């Protein structure tokens, strides 16, 4: 099935481009950015015209130095950690300074993600292969062959879905419902085991829920939701690499941020089963100079059945920490919504180095109206007040929060069909089936919910960049070592077709060149006093 890219905003180098549906020209850049060399910007490099000469000179110096000691240069290539190649001036400078001072230690690593919450300590070898419960996909020809007529039906389905969504947007529900009937008929003729048929089925369901049951939320929400969603999350974690990538990349950045600190505190915005933390605990255990005291505050929904599930997870993590001699303390904060959390609940100690970790949580704070003191602003403000060493943010790389329903629908159709496509590579059941249900619920929320019920308000990286910068955070670039390890992780755990990309200091994971999830790291802009930057 062909992959289409829907209305995504244009390349990151173009500032101020809107993500609206019209192909409008981007607004003129602010005066400072007009000095940016336009031709190099299009090639992916940000550099001011006034700096060109200087950068040219430094390139020459590098070249001469390289000619004089080629051995050092190739050492540089394998050892140095490089950041943000788009910022050409800074990049050339960092190479020059690396060259002047050879790196003192090889880049750190983190043990790869593990399949269950507790493991025994591992020796410091590269990501381990024990505990893998599914085999890698081999390039095989067991994939279903799509016949020409099926492909045609698939395209017709897509066409009808778009038309139906347009009817819904217009309010023409009678036409929309007859289209639903037609599509369900067509679906019978299409292979729904894989490809467009499977995804289309979910979108037809979501549309019909929207039409027939109204936009109150359908099956989303309700008492058993939290428990069910944890199980689905766990299987989504196992079936495809998106969450592993998120955890892995965030952990790498957190580890670097905690360098040199003896008391560290991680605040996790969504603990789930605590899948992210064993790897960090182990990495801290292996830190040269010994592990710090680690506090973990895990936020999660209250358990419906009276169990203190947060505490249970904390206990398991504590056991692991004890087994690797890391002093560890856990605290659970139960809150049904992130915006209900108040900073005093986290009990952050001013002497600690704090890391705030948000894996696909911030978008839930984007309320239905852009009101003043919206939840996102409130939360970002108190994060800033905690003065964390690092804020790690992972979000779906999608534009699912546009005002126009049709635009959202189109974008979601493309995004989720790509994600489903990537899931084809997973051969393990029931992981795959449950992962699909996990994704299906997301689709349901994006398509059939509105107002406060619609929580899956994904926004693309460019928007998050603007939002976080505007809220007083500056980006911490994720470097070439994080990139390399993420790439290696993929080869170990996943099928071919996934790709990691670096874009202006952030890393994205995508399927066949379409980024699906983006990881970035931030730090509050310091007021008075210095905070140890962890770049370079």
């Amino acid at each position: 099935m062909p992959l289409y890219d829907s209305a995504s905003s244009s390349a990151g180098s173009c500032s101020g481009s809107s993500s609206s549906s019209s192909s409008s020209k981007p607004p003129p850049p602010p005066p400072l950015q007009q000095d940016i060399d336009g031709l190099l910007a299009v090639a992916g490099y940000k550099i001011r015209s006034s700096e060109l000469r200087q950068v040219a000179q430094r390139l020459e110096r590098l070249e001469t130095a390289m000619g004089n000691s080629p051995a050092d240069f190739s050492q540089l290539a394998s050892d140095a950690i490089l950041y943000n190649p788009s910022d050409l001036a800074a990049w050339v400078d960092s190479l020059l300074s690396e060259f002047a001072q050879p790196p003192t230690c090889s880049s750190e690593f983190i043990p790869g993600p593990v399949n269950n919450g507790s493991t025994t300590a591992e020796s410091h070898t590269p990501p381990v292969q024990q505990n893998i419960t599914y085999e890698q996909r081999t390039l095989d020809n067991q994939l279903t062959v799509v016949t020409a007529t099926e492909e045609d039906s698939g395209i017709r389905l897509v066409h009808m879905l778009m038309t139906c969504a347009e009817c819904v947007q217009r309010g023409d529900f009678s036409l929309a419902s007859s289209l639903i009937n037609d599509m369900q008929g067509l679906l019978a003729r299409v292979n729904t085991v894989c490809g467009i048929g499977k995804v289309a089925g979910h979108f037809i369901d979501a549309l019909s829920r929207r039409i027939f049951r109204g936009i109150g939320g359908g099956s989303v929400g309700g008492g058993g939701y939290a428990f069910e969603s944890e199980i689905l999350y766990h299987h989504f974690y196992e079936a495809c690499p998106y969450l592993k990538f998120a955890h892995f990349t965030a952990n790498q950045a957190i580890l670097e941020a905690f360098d040199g600190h003896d008391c560290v505190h991680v605040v996790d915005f969504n603990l789930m089963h605590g899948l992210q933390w064993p790897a960090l605990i182990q990495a801290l255990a292996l830190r040269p100079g010994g592990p710090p005291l680690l506090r973990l505050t895990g936020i999660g929904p209250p358990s419906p059945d009276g169990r203190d599930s947060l505490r249970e997870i904390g206990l398991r993590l504590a056991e692991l920490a004890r087994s690797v001699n890391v002093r560890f303390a856990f605290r659970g904060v139960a809150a049904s919504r992130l915006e209900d959390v108040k900073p005093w609940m986290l009990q952050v100690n001013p002497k600690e180095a704090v890391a705030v970790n948000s894996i696909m949580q911030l978008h839930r704070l984007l309320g239905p109206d852009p009101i003043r003191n919206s939840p996102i602003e409130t939360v970002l403000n108190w994060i800033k007040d905690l003065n964390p060493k690092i804020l790690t943010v992972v979000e779906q790389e999608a534009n699912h929060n546009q005002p126009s329903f049709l635009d959202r629908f189109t974008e979601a159709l493309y995004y989720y069909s790509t994600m489903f496509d990537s899931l084809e590579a997973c051969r393990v059941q029931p992981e795959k089936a449950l992962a699909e249900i996990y994704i299906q619920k997301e689709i349901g929320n994006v398509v059939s919910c509105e107002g406060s019920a619609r929580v899956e308000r994904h926004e693309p990286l460019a928007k998050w960049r603007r939002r976080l910068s505007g809220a007083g955070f500056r980006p911490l670039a994720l470097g070439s070592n994080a990139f390399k390890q993420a790439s290696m992780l993929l080869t170990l755990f996943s099928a071919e077709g996934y790709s990691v990309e670096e874009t202006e200091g952030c890393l994205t994971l995508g399927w066949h060149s379409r980024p699906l999830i983006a990881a970035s790291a931030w730090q509050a802009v310091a007021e008075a006093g210095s905070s140890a930057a962890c770049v370079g």
Partner: protein
Amino acid sequence: MARSNEVNLNECKMVVPLNTWVLISNFKLAYNLLRRPDGTFNRHLAEFLDRKVPANANPVDGVFSFDVLIDRGTSLLCRIYRPATAEEPQPNVAELEKPVAAEVVPVIIFFHGGSFAHSSANSAIYDTLCRRLVGLCKAVVVSVNYRRAPENRYPCAYDDGWTALKWVNSRPWLQSQKDSKVHIYLAGDSSGGNIAHHVALRAIDSGIDVLGNILLNPMFGGQERTESEQRLDGKYFVTLRDRDWYWRAYLPEGEDRDHHACNPFGPNGRSLEGINFPKSLVVVAGFDLIQDWQLAYVDGLKKAGQEVKLLYMEQATIGFYLLPNNNHFHTVMDEISKFV
């Protein structure tokens, strides 16, 4: 040694605009970091450093793009660029493969450069170039994300090119109204130019018509050290040593540069006399150290009675076609639009 380096750098800076110099020097620097003396390649760092752009179904300057997986077995992706039509300024998802409207629509299959090892179809510089070609030639451009060396040696890149050619030829939506056939041109720069030649060769006995080849600074070579290689070694961004490295990385192990992939009119080449080979437009830069091989290629085509036009840009260095800030760029773009 340092002194002659300085002279080289200064000379080189005189002939290109400053931003071009910075761009190409930066590539040179990055590429030096990536090639290891033992013949291996630092692929992770290469992907980290490569500036990429996503496809964009929203037209920008009248061109929109989308990616298609054309072969699952090899994960072969192509990026397709199409002109946005006046009536449908913004195509929706179902209409990306709408049939082409005009009597005659050229379809240019483009192979990006990178000496077989670097770059991708979604590299920013090549995304830009392909978009330009759409407007210039009123064409659909299909940019092939072929497998690269040294992980994938000869003939992988040619195989992928051939797969793409077959795929393009069999798309009903790419057929021109006039004769219900797909009007195919092959184009590429550096290694992409080499690939275009070899894919055209493979097409000869296949029944697929290639209407023309466009080769921009195509990458050819041979065992012999030619005059231009000796004269220009290290002077304009490129060294013989790096050229040798890339050939060692692409050609089958143990083969030398007289292998027909590298030297199509050399001792191991195939004669093109009497063969129905497409007409060729070959652009050679006057400061490219491998120009003697490129000129020999043009001669080889002529001697075999094939139609070929040579554009020799005296004052041009490699990569001049990446930024539209020089006369060579505009001259070449004009010629390309006339050729197609």
